[in-house]
């Protein structure tokens, strides 16, 4: 009985000591955080005029100079944060000027030293900042760090830093391959990371698409959401019968999206694909197509076993003009309570159950399309001009 109590007493002493230690650390941490914040505010105020100078003169031809009084190491940290903020927000010549300013102020060198630190969190911080400064010189060290970190949230941070700083497509490729080697199927995130790069990685994507490796294909497919690759329609169609379902779905999604140049025959073939999702996508896409066999194909698809396929087929039939509507009415009348009839009736209800302003919608549509086209044309012209220069 006494020994039991003794254990309890030792336990109490141990826990009390831990509590005391914990409280000490807590308050020290709090105090230091408050001081850091105050310091940052002071530094910001002190260099306010210099920042105004920078922002006001981003456009001119002149070089940007560091502050007349060189900042201390602590101040540099705060200044760098603010510069990184602006480098991220801007593009083009203005961004380039800020980047060369960072180089001149020695920030790149300092971070290059830090990335060799034995502590991982320091290396991570250095990689992040080097990425923010688009520092090409740091890419080899960042690639090494990518190898060293555990696959997870941290690897994406380093990968993004590499994407921002890479000056050669080879570096970008190495980063992509390392990311793919880590386990998770985070292709969308990887594609987003690739987008940070200013390099033209379309050849790399084309190569990935043509390969037989699932990971590479999925990465290419994800990246193709934002940028089309020339002449990929055939390969995409091939991929719709790939062994892995995710590849089939993604390839089909790209083929069936508005603006894709897939032939109607292929779409009709996809309407009888083995995956329900692909059939539904094809059914939806056929609503935008006006070819001879479309109505017939859609009519058959009305009897599909998946609800989404039936529904989208019905919707697409409704967009096929009189022939389509007739087919719908027929299906609705003849099918009794079967699934095809249900879908047909639902769509007919949507179409005619209500909106007299359907005509107005079309008006507004053409107006907005005009404005959209005007802006797009302007943008294209600017890019042409930029490319000429």
């Amino acid at each position, binding site marked *: *009985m006494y020994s*039991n*109590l003794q254990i*309890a*007493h030792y*336990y*109490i002493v141990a*826990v*009390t000591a*831990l*509590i005391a230690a*914990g*409280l000490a*650390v*807590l*308050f020290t*941490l*709090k*105090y230091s*955080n*408050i001081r850091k*914040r105050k310091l940052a505010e002071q530094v910001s105020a002190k260099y306010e005029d210099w920042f105004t100078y920078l922002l006001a003169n981003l456009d001119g031809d002149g070089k940007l100079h560091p502050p007349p009084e060189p900042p201390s190491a602590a101040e540099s940290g705060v200044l760098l944060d603010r510069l990184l903020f602006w480098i*991220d927000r801007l593009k083009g010549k203005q961004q380039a000027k800020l980047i060369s300013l960072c180089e001149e102020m020695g920030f790149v060198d300092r971070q290059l030293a830090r990335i060799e630190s034995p502590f991982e*969190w320091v290396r*991570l911080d250095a990689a*992040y900042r080097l990425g923010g400064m688009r520092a090409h010189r740091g890419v080899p060290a960042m690639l090494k760090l990518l190898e060293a970190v*555990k696959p*997870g*949230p*941290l690897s*994406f*941070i380093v990968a*993004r830093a590499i994407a921002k700083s890479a000056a050669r497509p080879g570096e970008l490729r190495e980063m992509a391959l390392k990311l793919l080697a880590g386990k*998770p*199927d*985070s292709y*969308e*995130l990887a*594609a*987003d990371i690739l*987008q940070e790069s200013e390099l033209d990685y379309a050849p790399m994507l084309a190569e990935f698409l043509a390969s037989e490796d699932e990971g590479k294909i999925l990465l290419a497919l*994800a990246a193709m*959401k*934002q940028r089309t690759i020339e002449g990929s329609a055939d390969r995409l169609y091939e991929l719709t019968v790939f062994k892995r379902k995710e590849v089939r779905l993604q390839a089909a999604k790209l083929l069936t999206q508005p603006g894709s140049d897939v032939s109607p025959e292929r779409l009709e073939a996809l309407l009888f694909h083995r995956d329900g999702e692909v059939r539904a996508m094809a059914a939806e896409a056929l609503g935008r197509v006006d070819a001879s066999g479309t109505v017939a194909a859609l009519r058959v698809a009305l009897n599909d076993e998946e*609800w*989404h396929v039936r*529904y989208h087929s019905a919707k697409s039939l409704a967009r096929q003009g009189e022939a389509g509507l007739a087919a719908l009415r027929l299906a609705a009348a003849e099918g009794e309570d079967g699934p095809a009839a249900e879908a047909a009736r*639902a*769509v007919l*209800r*949507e*179409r005619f*159950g*209500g*909106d007299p302003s359907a005509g107005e919608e079309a008006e507004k549509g053409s107006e907005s399309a005009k404005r959209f086209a005007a802006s797009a044309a302007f943008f294209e012209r600017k890019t042409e001009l930029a490319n000429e220069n």
Partner: protein
Amino acid sequence: MRELLLGYGTVIMYYVMAVSLIYFTLMFLSYRGIYSMIKGAVYSRFQSLSGSAHAPPVSLLVPAYNEELTIIENVKSLLTLNYHTYEVIVINDGSKDNTLQVLIDAFELKPKTDETVHYAIDSTKIKAVYYNPAHPNLYVVDKNNGGKADSLNAGINLSHYPLICSIDADSLLEKDALIRMARVYMENPAETVAIGGNVRIANGCVIRDGDVKDVRLPRKIWPMFQTLEYLKAFLGGRIGWSHINGLIIVSGAFGMFRKDYVVKVGGYREGYPGEDMNIIIKLHRYMLKNKLPYRVAYCPDAVCWTQAPDTYRILSSQRKRWGRGNLKNMLENRDLFLNPKYKVFGLLTVPYNVLFETLNPYFKLTGLLALIGYVAMDMTHWPILLTFAAINFLNGYLLAVGSLLLEELAFRRYPRMRDTLKMVGFAALMFLGYYQLGVLWRLQGHIEFLRKNNSWGVMTRQSWNQEPIGKPSTVTTGGEA
């Protein structure tokens, strides 16, 4: 007899120490897990990611019952999240007040006729869907009363996107909460079936235009206790559990799910509280049974602010409801208890929950009574009672300090030194009655369960005008600008 009582009392003391050991392990795991979570969050550029086409579209589901006072503010706030493609689906669960009309008037909604709903999950039929193209992301669904779970299921049936997010009608999401959750999803999309967000207490904070402008501690005592409770539970507990993939609950106030898996497990369980824990248990069960790699993740930097009950009546009603739900969930899923087929979930999570959460009141109470009885019989051994109390107190306090330290390391939401002092003080005060009340409420919840009592209890909605006393409110309630 005396020996028996002492023996039993000592056993309970060991029980308490064992619970503490598990708590400490959890806290340790939280500290480990937090490193990569936080670095991942700190170094992400959410502003840019929120506009990226690679972030997945999300459907926010907001079940609403008798929320006419606050629904407009909340919906407006939900419509201004920093995310490129998402929809807000408000489900009016047959409210007896003017919730639906208030929404229709404020947003000028009209019935949407070109929408056909496919009932992937059984739910009460949707009577009508209201929409206005000027607010292209807002849908209001009207249906007959069926409960929160039923409303969520109806919302799932309507939703157009592959990810769904269940939100309480009085949750105030931070602007970047959604993109932070989405980042966690994007890092492992194939395996992530659910992600829990961090729920924080908004009482006492300065709120303007649906944004928390200044974070402060509550002035009233009940919300203050709850603030500390939530910090311990979310920061100390959930991070740790998610690190070993043993998370048993994702808060109903803010949780993201993959729609396809939710549909596969049959949607939310209707008719009884605790559906938020229940859906997670179902998901674990499904994925483990089908041997699919998965994770239920936790995103501590995605914050949802909620109003904590500030009166005894409402708070006790809420806790009794939780107790009821917890017991029902554990009973329904007792086959998972120590079942090795269910890995971490079966061997650690469920037993922990049963022994140390559900049955906690019984152990502690009986232990205390036993020791009191023992001492009553032989007053010379009163120090043992003191020891028992001391162990209880010190355990809990160490965990509280650990959570506060975690908060300071990783989140720093309470910037003032006096906030920390106040929290440190209240963490101690909680042992002078609040925890005991918690035990009582849980017991009452169990009794209600056994009596087949199934009401939702007392709830009153307050406007979001929670400001420090003396300052005029700048929140507009309802109406158009």
